[in-house]
């Protein structure tokens, strides 16, 4: 295999890079490069047929309805303020340990993540609920902002998850398997965060106020707080419960979730306004994500006509590297790419190139999806485009952005530890799914 074999593919990727650098919107840059690739390799009538049918095929699929439904459900859960009861329950149960409110915040994020698939929405709602309380009680901005930004990333790991839905659309890996596999690593992440906060505050007690002299809540108060999370519990059972038990497909479960969270909003003030905002935001996000999916699909086809992904996969297999080293070599660039591109775009741009390699070396597509999601999470809390950090900052005018990022750093280290654990012990994710 010579470099010559790779030239057509490399030229298409080069064109994509040039278009991206020239600030062409990512969806259009992908589509443009894909169309050029197709036009080079296929007779025009074939290209014309593809252009006339591709967008329809990439959208009109009942399984894809899951995306707007989960987005809408997340918006409704956000508008109904369901994270508040979760945070309060966390406060009652974890409030007494060092850094207790920060731990309660992570608990609240994890609980909210079981009904919301967006990391930005999770960070945003917890910024409203937990940040003022932490700052009022004398928590340092660094810890308060860091734990929310990092806790928010649980939104995309703990199912439902918008990132996993898009990964499933791009790679044809089963969404149900992804959701089942993501649950344990998600909960593990939350537990490691809580343990990390405990250690961090033990090492630097000035981060959080001392708990001495405060009256602990009674068991009655604790269980009442837990009972107050009933709406969240119902939503979890209706959505993830039915998916895990195999009673409903993800689309059906998402529709029920959207319906129940809609009812939760209708029970509260500003109902009409919140529903309209939710519908509008869902539409805008769905449009931009599908624009990316269509663009990435055309790019993938254009690249596939050059045989580049297959040849690259053959080349990598021929290198005789271990599976783990290959996966690490694939994953590390995501950390760098995450500095320039948002998570979903990153997945859509890279999957046509790297997924064939993953399949070829026999690595689990399910586990790879989770690992890539982890990379996306890390990108969301590291500069310069760490979206979650910006969301928290926008709601915490008194905390400088540099402090937010400093607060995220310990969580980034914990994330790297979790990724290492997930690679070393694939059973953590895969013990319930056959791949």
């Amino acid at each position, binding site marked *: 295999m010579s470099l010559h074999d790779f030239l057509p593919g490399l030229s298409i990727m080069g064109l994509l890079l040039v278009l991206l650098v020239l*600030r062409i919107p990512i969806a259009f840059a992908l*589509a443009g490069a894909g169309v050029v690739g197709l036009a080079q390799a296929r007779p025009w009538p074939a290209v014309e047929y593809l*252009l006339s049918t591709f967008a329809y095929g990439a*959208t*009109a699929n009942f399984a894809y309805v899951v995306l707007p439904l989960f987005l809408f459900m997340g918006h409704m859960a956000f508008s109904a303020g369901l994270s508040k009861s979760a945070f309060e329950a966390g406060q009652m149960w974890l409030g007494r340990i060092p850094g207790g409110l920060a731990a309660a915040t992570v608990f609240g994020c994890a609980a909210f993540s079981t009904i919301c698939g967006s990391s930005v*929405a999770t960070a*945003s709602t917890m910024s409203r609920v937990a940040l003022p309380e932490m700052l009022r009680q004398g928590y340092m901005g660094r810890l308060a902002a860091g734990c929310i930004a990092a806790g928010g990333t649980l939104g995309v790991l703990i199912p439902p998850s918008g*990132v996993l839905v898009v990964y499933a659309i791009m790679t044809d890996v089963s969404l149900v398997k992804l959701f089942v596999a993501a649950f344990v690593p998600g909960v593990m992440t939350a537990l490691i965060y809580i343990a990390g906060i405990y250690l961090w505050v033990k090492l630097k007690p000035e981060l959080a106020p001392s708990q001495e002299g405060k009256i602990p809540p009674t068991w009655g108060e604790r269980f009442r707080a837990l009972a107050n999370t009933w709406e969240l519990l119902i939503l979890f059972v209706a959505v993830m419960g039915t998916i895990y038990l195999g009673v409903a497909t993800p689309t059906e479960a998402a529709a029920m979730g959207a319906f129940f969270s809609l009812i939760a909003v209708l029970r509260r003030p500003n109902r009409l306004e919140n529903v*309209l905002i939710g519908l509008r935001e869902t539409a805008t996000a769905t449009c931009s994500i599908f624009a990316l999916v269509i663009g990435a699909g055309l790019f993938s086809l254009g690249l596939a006509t050059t045989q580049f992904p297959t040849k690259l996969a053959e080349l990598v297999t021929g290198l005789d590297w271990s599976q783990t080293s290959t996966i690490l070599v694939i994953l590390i660039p995501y950390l760098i790419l995450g500095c320039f591109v948002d998570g979903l775009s990153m997945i859509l741009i890279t999957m046509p190139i790297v997924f064939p390699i993953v399949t070829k070396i026999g690595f689990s597509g399910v586990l790879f999806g989770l690992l890539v999601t982890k990379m996306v999470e890390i990108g969301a809390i590291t500069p310069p485009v760490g*979206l979650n950090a910006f969301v928290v900052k926008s709601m915490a005018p008194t905390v400088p952005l540099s402090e937010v990022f400093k607060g995220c750093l310990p969580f980034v280290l914990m994330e790297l530890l979790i990724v290492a654990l997930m690679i070393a012990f694939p059973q953590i994710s895969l013990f319930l799914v056959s791949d």
Partner: protein
Amino acid sequence: MLPLIEAVEWLLSRLGVLSGFATLLVTLIVVTDVAGRSIFNAPLHSATEVSELLLVALVFLGLAGAQQKRQNYAIDVATRHLPMPLQNILEAFGYLFCLVLTVGLAWFSTKQALSSYDRGEAGFGIIAFPIWPARFILALGLWLLSVQFVCDILRFLTGNQRATGPDDATIGSHE
């Protein structure tokens, strides 16, 4: 010129808001189908096909509105510090590139929609649910997006750019 652009854009953004109701309809349809099937053993016929049609409407009728809100992300690390005139040239190139691509897709999609109508293209469900309406909606959405790009170009040429940018992180953003 500006009032005309604003009027057209207002219409496009209203259509985007309207398309948002598709989510609500899909929710109700799927919930009714699930309830009908599991409780009354009476599924809602064509629920799948109607949901697919509504998803197409949601995505394509909202594209122009999404472009108005600059929800189509671009990477600006490389160009952020370039001199203003050069940035302007790049912006114009970007609009033209997107316009040409969208018009191309719209043109072929329209041809496909017409041919689908002529053939009476339908799904293979219990009821032969027609597919051509979705194809027409898709083509219409792409033409409307083209109109939005024309508005963007006119705004650029007359120096009346909108102030919104992709930096407005909202909970509706990508992740």
